């Protein structure tokens, strides 16, 4: 396969879709301020954002576009006052997803579903700070509540926390199916997919 270089047109496409993805993501992310729903964030967000991403993928035919999108979302996260972690995660998972899409030459349905699952895992970058802050909470709880209680709570946290990567991946898979369904239902008809 001949390696094609990124054109300015492609870069603009990346910008447009990153904007749509981010607005949707941010609006939905507000749900995360409701404490109980917080645990569902890694599952719900990728499902909703699956539609614009699948639409984006129909425009992608060169290596690098998904990577740039991941990095851009990471930069936006840093600029809106999250940690520097989303930037690293965004780049890495964007790159991985890009590689997966490339194997399917950006046209394989199966690989694009898996790829979006991988891409969605960048969300973990936002949750990593809570792992870091865990030590602080552990200390507070140890002083006051006793070892037994602390251990129970932290074990519970660990149990829930380990599910986040899988939740994000699962959310991505569901979101990709949902997006593909919407694609064939609306966008093909409108002639823009």
């Amino acid at each position, binding site marked *: 396969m001949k390696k094609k270089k990124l054109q*300015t047109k492609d870069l603009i496409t990346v910008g*447009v879709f990153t904007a749509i993805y981010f607005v949707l993501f941010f609006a939905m992310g507000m749900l995360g301020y409701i404490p109980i729903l917080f645990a569902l964030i890694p599952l719900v967000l990728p499902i909703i954002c699956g539609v614009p991403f699948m639409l984006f993928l129909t425009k992608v035919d060169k290596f690098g576009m998904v990577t740039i999108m991941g990095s851009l979302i990471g930069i936006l996260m840093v600029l809106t006052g999250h940690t520097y972690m989303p930037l690293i995660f965004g780049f890495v998972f964007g790159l991985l997803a890009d590689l997966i899409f490339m194997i399917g030459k950006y046209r394989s349905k199966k690989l694009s579903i898996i790829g979006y699952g991988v891409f969605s895992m960048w969300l973990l970058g936002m949750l990593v700070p809570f792992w870091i802050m865990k030590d602080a909470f552990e200390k*507070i709880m140890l002083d006051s509540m006793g070892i037994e209680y602390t251990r129970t709570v932290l074990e519970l946290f660990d149990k829930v926390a380990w599910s986040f990567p899988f939740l994000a991946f699962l959310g991505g898979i569901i979101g990709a199916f949902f997006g593909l369904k919407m694609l064939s239902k609306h966008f093909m008809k409108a002639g*823009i997919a």
Partner: protein
Amino acid sequence: MEKVHLQSKSNQNSINIDPRTKIFILLIINISVFTINVWYILALAALIPVSLFAIRKNKSLAMSFSLVYTVSLVFYVFFIEATNVISIMTAMVTGIVNRMGPGFLMGYYLISTTTVSEFIAAMERMRIPKQIIIPFSVMFRFFPTIKEESSSIKDAMRMRGISFGKTKGSIITLMEYRLIPLFISCVKIGEELSCSALTRGLGSPQKRTNICNIGFSRIDLLYGILATFILVLWFISKGV
């Protein structure tokens, strides 16, 4: 009232610091505040955006933030003897405010006081590749468009009797009615934008010129030193 982020006109009258300094401060705040628990570093980190907002004559925001932050910090430092569920909850809430607050405020300062052109100029000076700069500026050009389109579609749908609470069917259906037209119009606008940008020479290999005047001044030096000081304190208390 209209809030404008990364607006296209800059406010010439007020003192502005270089976008690069803003990014530098933001990075240092993000790195130091999240991984540390020392109250004077947190206070210093919060002081930077607060004073920046105060200089920009946005006194109400600066005052209210510093009030909330001081209360939260005092609670965190002095009332940490958690003995019941309520105080643990307090510790968690204040902990989140203390760690998220400065970075969030600084991020808000960055996007609310920098114009897109200034940002692009700063990024070009920092030798960031155009593969990042172009999508980045398109993105910020697009945020207001999305908002506009979204509200027009909302109106159009209301005219047809589709809105929250009135329509039968699930939230998913409602979102489909609202979001799918939004995506379609955004894609169309994006294509037009891409054509118009190309005709204006965005795709040319030449280096672009920029009329924005950015540069470091004394106030940048002051804030740069302050931020570096926080980094030094952070290294010391980390024991590196």
